[in-house]
């Protein structure tokens, strides 16, 4: 009897597993992207995260001007061309004709894209009296963060296919801002319709754009479905369906890629890179990220106000060891405050060498033969530009000890850290930046300009030569002239060393071998127009 009982139980205990047979593959070409998180919503004006931009602006919407895929170069989008007035205060955009908004199950457009759509899209963010301004929480953080409300004086519809932006001051990076995600063009006709129906928030949940893919369905935290927009003005995308399978765990994303359940995967674990590289079914793509990780010196605090002291500290840091230990291959040494993917990157700048002996001597010459005491602030969060600030601080601490500088490591909760470093409580601090619009101004002026002291210029470094150069570069829209000015600014930066530039991260994107023509976006986005799958 006992044995029968055992047999029966064991039989029941055996878990029935059935071979997993994929449902019959449809004849349509479908690309599955295993995205890392759920989008916050479906209107790129309202949010600031890359996850939301991937799900919206990068694939559903267009902007007046856009970044050429895989680059930071600005090319025409919904505007075929634009004129800048001689004083740099007026930007007139000439709009593309014959562009159709997407026809979806929830909206059928009756007219083509025109100036009304541009007016609606910007008025919603800019004009507090716009009926849509307060819809869905009504906070336009990126628009605000790029100082657009202060910058724009007026937006004028000249005719159905011409829109003029009048600025309060000449600002060359304005054109780059217009290529950013928040500047996506939404349908005014759809917005009016939803307002009439009493459901205005619907435009932010079920988006309608002019882009290459149109929204089909979103199952919260699980899957987003798109199909190719058959009327897309640049031509229909090579793939027919695009699916975002939301997969938060990086290890699982890798397993899904191996099993062929998705074709493109973002943010791989550094530990998995070797295995990905060795797998013939996976093509591991990589590119330098649009960011900089640095150690900043509070240039208002003695003795860090002395250039020689800063130089000596920089020369004592063994960057190679840091790249090896902290970035584990996913970083390159940085010598400039902007990454090499940004135009005007000055490759002629020579980095401070790693030379503890010379550093020690330099410090002695500056009046500190026995070193001094300072602190190193370490960020409590992980960032692509600095995957482990705590460990990096420890390595720098050890390097500096060799030249007699005793540094105490300090850390605060992230919000607190940001506030205190803004106020300048720190001696030296680890920090970084990821570019917004690919314009050098977005690094050099935002992080090192005199105006930014007390906010994002945490080094509190205000150098007249440097500031004159970057202010001058703001006022001209001649790219060659701007390039020259920024190149010079980088030379001044290196002479003065307000930061020890540490690294630019390297972005890795594993895609399956059958995926063709995928390009890494320098802004960290995931763009699927132009991507194909080999049969």
């Amino acid at each position, binding site marked *: *009897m*006992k044995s029968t*009982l*055992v047999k029966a*139980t064991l039989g*029941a*205990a055996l*878990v029935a*597993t*059935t*071979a*997993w047979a*994929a*449902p019959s*593959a*449809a004849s349509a070409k*479908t690309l*599955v992207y295993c995205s890392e*998180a*759920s989008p*916050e*919503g479906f209107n790129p004006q309202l949010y*600031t995260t890359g996850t939301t931009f991937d799900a919206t602006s990068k694939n559903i919407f267009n902007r007046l001007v856009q970044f050429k895929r895989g680059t930071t170069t600005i090319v025409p989008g919904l505007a075929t061309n634009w004129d800048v007035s001689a004083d740099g205060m007026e930007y007139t955009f000439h709009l593309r004709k014959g562009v159709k908004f997407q026809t979806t199950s929830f909206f059928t457009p009756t007219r083509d894209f025109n100036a009304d759509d541009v007016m609606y899209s910007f008025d919603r963010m800019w004009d507090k009296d716009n009926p849509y301004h307060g819809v869905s929480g009504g*906070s336009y*953080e990126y628009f*605000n*963060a790029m100082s657009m409300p202060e910058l724009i004086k007026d937006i004028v519809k000249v005719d159905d296919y011409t829109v003029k932006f009048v600025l309060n001051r000449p600002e060359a990076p304005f054109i780059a801002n217009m290529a950013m995600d928040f500047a996506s063009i939404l349908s005014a006709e759809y917005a009016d319709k939803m307002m009439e129906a009493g459901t205005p*928030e619907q435009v932010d949940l079920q988006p309608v754009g002019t882009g290459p893919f149109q929204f089909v*369905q979103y*199952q*919260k*935290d*699980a*899957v987003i*479905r798109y199909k190719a927009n058959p009327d897309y003005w640049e031509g229909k995308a090579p793939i027919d369906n695009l699916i975002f*399978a*939301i*997969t*938060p*765990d990086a*290890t*699982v994303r890798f*397993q*899904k890629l*191996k*099993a062929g*359940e998705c074709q493109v995967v973002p943010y791989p674990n550094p530990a998995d890179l070797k295995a990905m590289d060795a797998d013939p079914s996976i093509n591991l793509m990589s590119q330098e990220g649009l960011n900089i990780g640095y150690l900043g010196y509070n240039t208002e605090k003695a003795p860090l106000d002395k250039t020689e002291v800063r130089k000596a500290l920089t020369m004592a840091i063994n960057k190679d060891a840091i790249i090896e230990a902290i970035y584990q291959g996913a970083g390159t040494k940085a010598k400039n405050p902007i990454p090499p993917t940004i135009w005007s990157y000055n490759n002629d700048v020579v980095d401070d060498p790693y030379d503890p002996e010379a550093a020690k001597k330099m410090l002695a010459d500056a009046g500190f033969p026995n070193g001094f005491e300072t602190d190193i602030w370490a960020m409590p969060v992980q960032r692509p530009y600095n995957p482990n600030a705590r460990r990096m601080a420890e390595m720098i601490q050890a390097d500096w000890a060799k030249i007699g500088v005793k540094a105490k490591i300090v850390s605060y*909760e*992230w*919000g*607190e850290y*940001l*506030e205190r470093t803004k106020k300048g409580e720190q001696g030296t601090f680890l*920090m*970084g*930046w*990821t570019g*917004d619009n690919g314009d050098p101004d977005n690094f050099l002026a935002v992080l090192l300009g005199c105006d930014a002291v007390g*906010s*994002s210029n945490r080094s509190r470094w205000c150098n007249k030569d440097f500031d004159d150069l970057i202010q001058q570069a703001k006022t001209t829209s001649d790219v060659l002239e701007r390039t020259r000015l920024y190149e010079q600014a980088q030379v001044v930066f290196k002479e003065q060393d307000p930061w020890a530039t540490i690294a630019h991260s390297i972005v890795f994107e594993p895609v399956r071998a059958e995926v063709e023509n995928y390009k890494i976006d320098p802004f960290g986005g995931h763009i699927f127009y132009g991507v194909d799958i080999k049969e």
Partner: protein
Amino acid sequence: MLGFFFRRLGDIIPTFFGVTLLVFFLIRLIPGDPILMMAGERGVDAARYAQLKAQYGFDQPLIMQYFHYLLGVFQGDLGKSFVTKKPVLEEFLTLFPATVELGVVAILFALVVGLPLGVIAAVRRGGIFDYTTMTVSLAGYSMPIFWWATMLIMFFSVFLGWTPVSGRLSVLYFIEPTTGFMLIDTLLSDQKGAFLDAVEHLILPAIALGTIPMAVIARMTRSSMLEVLREEYIRVARAKGLSPAKVVIVHALRNALIPVVTVIGLQVSVLVAGAILTETIFSWPGIGKWIVEAVSRRDYPTIQGGILLIAMMIMMVNLMVDLTYSVINPRIRHTR
């Protein structure tokens, strides 16, 4: 019986207040200003900061914020998510069926496997089966879920290719959610193979989540059975010449079940805790994954609402366990 029910229900009210209080203040104790966190390196200027603070109600004294929150809770309004701007209750209800589905299948797995294992181990005490089962169940109990889940995926999904890696349904099926329970929705749909596909997606997460309860149930059943098997009435039953199966199943198991039922009730909270990891690993769109994301985004209304709803659910399950218990053993009704 009714008196007992109301007495137990009465106990729940102070617990409920305790939970709202704890959740509300504990979240605010975690360092991290949500507005500064959201702004990140880019920062936010003072005017905008003040504006956002007012918008979220952070400019009021904490006690007033709590009061408003409580007032909302009593009107069934748990607030709107900072991130998605949607009502928390609505989001919870969309995701809850996925968690229930996973939890129910996991506990079924734990019962179907754990109960018989415990019984057999007790009957064959000291034998190889007993040793193996108890060692394996100890291992199962101590296994970190994230590791175990990854191992299951690597072996069954990637190496053998038997089960899908993650998700609730293959992305090629297009199911409009009606009940939110994938097994039911796929059965109702006319898409061939969708139901089987949903079952295949459930296997690994259910095993990963059900392993700890399974181990606990197996061990509990064994020890409880061993105690009962020593009782006089079992010896009497045997002496009367009843078949061993009848003695074990009818006389011993039924009495051994009382502590086991309690343990099963307690496992519900273990399941919820485990669901947080399991859902994240298997990309299972349930409330566990939802709360984890909310914590990392400092989305106060979602964390508060989510935890409160889960706590209420656990209280209800415990109440039901107590009631079941009193049905099995009437003596419990009369003690406080």
